[in-house]
Every structure is written in C-alpha cells, then in structure tokens.
C-alpha cells in the first residue's frame, strides 16, 4: 500500500490524542453549523459549506488554544489526485470561509472549499490511529486506502 504522510503547513502540529477506545459503531452524527465569510461582505451560498461532527467539535475544544482554529486545505497530488491537509492556524485571509459549531472553528479557503463543500469533518478514533477526516464528501469518488487522498467526480 502507499504511505500517506500528513505534513502540516503553518501553525503548530496537531497534538497526539490520548489512547482511546476503539471507534464506536453507530455513533450519532448530528451536525449543524453556521458557515460564513469573515468580514463585511456577504457570503455566497453557492460556494458551499462544511459541517462539523460532534466528535470533531469535542476534539477541537480540547486541543485549540487562544485564536487557533482547524484549517482544511485540498492539494493536488496524492494517490488518487487530491488530498486533504489539516493544520492548526491562527491567521484568516480574505478568501477564507469559516464554519463554527459549539465554539469550534474550521476554516477553508474558497479554492479548497470547491472540493469539499457539503462534506463533514469528523474526528475519528480507531485503534490504529486517530485523526481528523473528511467524510461523506459529495464531490469525491474513490479514494486511497488511508483516506487522505480522493479523486473527484466530473
């Protein structure tokens, strides 16, 4: 299989989660969030939005300090064509869009948002690893085995 590293861009590294129980089957995923553009201009609903799961919110509240938020970017490359990149960041740019739920924030730049709109960001805890994941991406087709890379339905 392929090796999919998850390098972080700016900000500090995502802290290692404590060893936890194996992922619970049938975990309820209720999501509701407001997704908006920071600043005075109106956000364009056609740009789409990203949802946060309960476990994502819980984990972010545990690990973020001060003005930190979770940044999600999409990059070209990776086994299937595109890959998700998560990092902790503090700087918001004019072309960012942000979503918040329960005090946790996720920020996506408008170019990456085109690839992940309608998706949910989840914090998944498995025996083998725990990580932030993009799940149920309506744009994505088959992906790579580790879940970091995806290809896009045209």
């Amino acid at each position, binding site marked *: 299989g392929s090796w999919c*590293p998850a390098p972080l861009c700016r900000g500090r590294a995502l802290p290692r989660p404590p060893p936890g129980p194996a992922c619970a089957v049938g975990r309820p995923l209720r999501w509701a969030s407001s997704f908006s553009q920071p600043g005075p201009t109106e956000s364009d609903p056609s740009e789409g939005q990203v949802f946060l799961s309960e476990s994502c919110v819980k984990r972010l509240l545990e690990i973020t300090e001060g003005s930190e938020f979770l940044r999600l970017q999409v990059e*070209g*490359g990776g086994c299937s064509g595109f890959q998700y990149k998560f990092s902790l960041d503090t700087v918001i740019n004019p072309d960012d869009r942000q979503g918040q739920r329960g005090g946790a924030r996720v920020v996506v730049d408008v170019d990456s948002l085109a690839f992940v709109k309608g998706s949910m960001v989840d914090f998944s805890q498995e025996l083998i690893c725990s990580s932030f994941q993009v799940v149920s991406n309506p744009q994505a087709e*088959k992906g790579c085995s580790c879940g970091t*890379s995806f290809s896009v339905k045209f």
Partner: protein
Amino acid sequence: MLVRAGAAAAAAAATTVPGLRRLWRGGGSGAAACFPLGRALVDVRGAEAAPFLQGLLTNDVTRLVAGDGPPAGALPRALYAHALNVQGRCLYDVILYRLHESPEEEPHILLECDGGVLDAIQKHMKLYKIRRKVNIAPCLDLSLWAVVPGERAGDIASSLTKCADQALILTPDPRTEVMGWRLITKKGVNLSEIIPGSRIGNIQDYHRHRYKQGVPEGVKDLPPGVALPLESNLAYMNGISFTKGCYIGQELTARTHHMGVIRKRLLPVHFSAPLPKDSIPEGAEISTESGKSAGKFRAGGGELGIALLRLANINEPLCLNLAGDKVKLTAGIPEWWPKTASK
C-alpha cells in the same frame, strides 16, 4: 548562461577542440548526430514547483532539485518520470530539467513531453495546481535536441562538455546511456557554434535508434490510459522511486512492484521484412509458432518496432498476425537493461 552536467564537466579540463572534431568528423554511423526533437517544453516555476510535481510524477523530484543535501554541482540536471492516471496507467512520459542553480533561486524546471500532449499536460497540471505557488506555461523560445552517439562513439562525455554559452542545458539522457545526451538551446541557434563539427540527423534515424534499443518515447509508444509504467520498463529507465510519498497512481504501481510479478514488458522487435508505413494497427496480436498468444505490437517503423511481450516467450520465433498474413519477427533483451533482468 551555460549549464554543465555534473561530474563530467569537472573532469573535462584536458579536452581539446581537435579531439572533439575527430569525434564528429565524417558522417555515417560512426559519428554522433544531433536530432531536433518534436517534443514540447513546459516551463514550471515558482516556490512550490518541486512539491507540486512530486505529487504528480513517479520519480523523486527532490533528486533533481537542490535542497539541504549535496551542493548543486553534484545533482543531476535531468530526471525521467511518468505522470500516471488515478488507475495507475501511463499518461505522459516526461523528462524534467533543472534550470536554477542554487536553493536560493526561485525553482525553475523545464518539462519535456510529447508535442501532441502540450495542451493536455498543461490542463492536467492546472487541474491539480489549486493554490500551489507555481506557474505553468508553454516554453516556445527553446529548442530540444537529442545527441546520440554512433556505433563507434568514443568518450563522448568529455568531448561534449566543451561547448559555447548558447547551450542552456547539455546533460546525459537520464533514461539510459544508449540514448546519449539531451541538449536545449535557444531557438534559431546555429548548432555548429555549440558543438563544432556536429551534423544534424534525420529524425527518422532517431526513432530507428530508439526502436532498435527498445526505448519507448511519446504517446504512440506509451498510449495514455493503456500503457502500464512497470511493463514499460520505467524502473529500468530510472524513472520511478519506490521510496517517495504519494503521487497520482501510486497505489497500483507500488503494489505491483512489491507483490506482483511483471510477466510482460516492452521489448524491441525486428521484423523479417520491412512493413509499409502506418500499416500495423496498434495492438496487433503477436503469437508463437504454435499459435499461442505472446503479446501485442505497440509501435514502430520499417523493420523495427517495440511490442509488449510475455517474457517467457521472447526467445522463441514469433510472428505478427496482420490481416491474415503472418510476418516473422524476433525479440531481444536490450543491452542496457540491468543484468539481473533476464527474466
């Protein structure tokens, strides 16, 4: 700006012009020839040029680009690679050339590809660019040449390093020694000012040389979406790294390498009689004398070509099935394949 290839430049201090002239004098099969290539060049530059290409190509771009590692003088100037599709099939065969000298400069890479896919490969790269700090543009003011030694070529390396400022790049072909050197110049330059005494060869001779040696190049030899990288001898041609991170199409390729056996490869074939131009459909069946399927014809011209053949059958007499006729052919293992590659 003259860019010299690696160690050969340092060793060439004693090269004299008469030595070079002796190598080049007199045409025919002995001398080396310069072939103007019908391949396109794409300019890829920007701070993220290397990581951008790293996610798209089979080879390790960090071998080419000066980082914190060895000084720029020790790094190769050219790198061979394929861009694959998500299913792991070949899309484009490319050669990368590093134009910048040191890590302090903005990375500037030239990408050589089949002339017919210039638009397609730019579209492919722009699709995956997203927010990367990289600029992609066709390079229309440079010429690309292959410098191929003839049968009697002597120490071509030291002779060729004596060249004028108008060669932007002069470097050994990264695929195999038998392909000689790659030369990039400004368009319209007089070749004999760069390589005194050189002669310009007929491009058909270049293709004949490739088919004789079994070196595939371009979309006819490597049909996009059809050819498989390992069957196309990408590993023998130094075009793939099995220790680098993810790139498009890596999963199938890595799995085949680590777990699979490669039973078929592209091999040079020689027909008993020259075939009329463009008369062979790509994919025409090749079989053994007893009628068992041994592979498929891929591309060629005259009495030479390359075919995808089962390694188990290459020492038998074979024939091509062409509209009812059977044309005899023989296949051979190229001399430049690694010696352990007999199977």
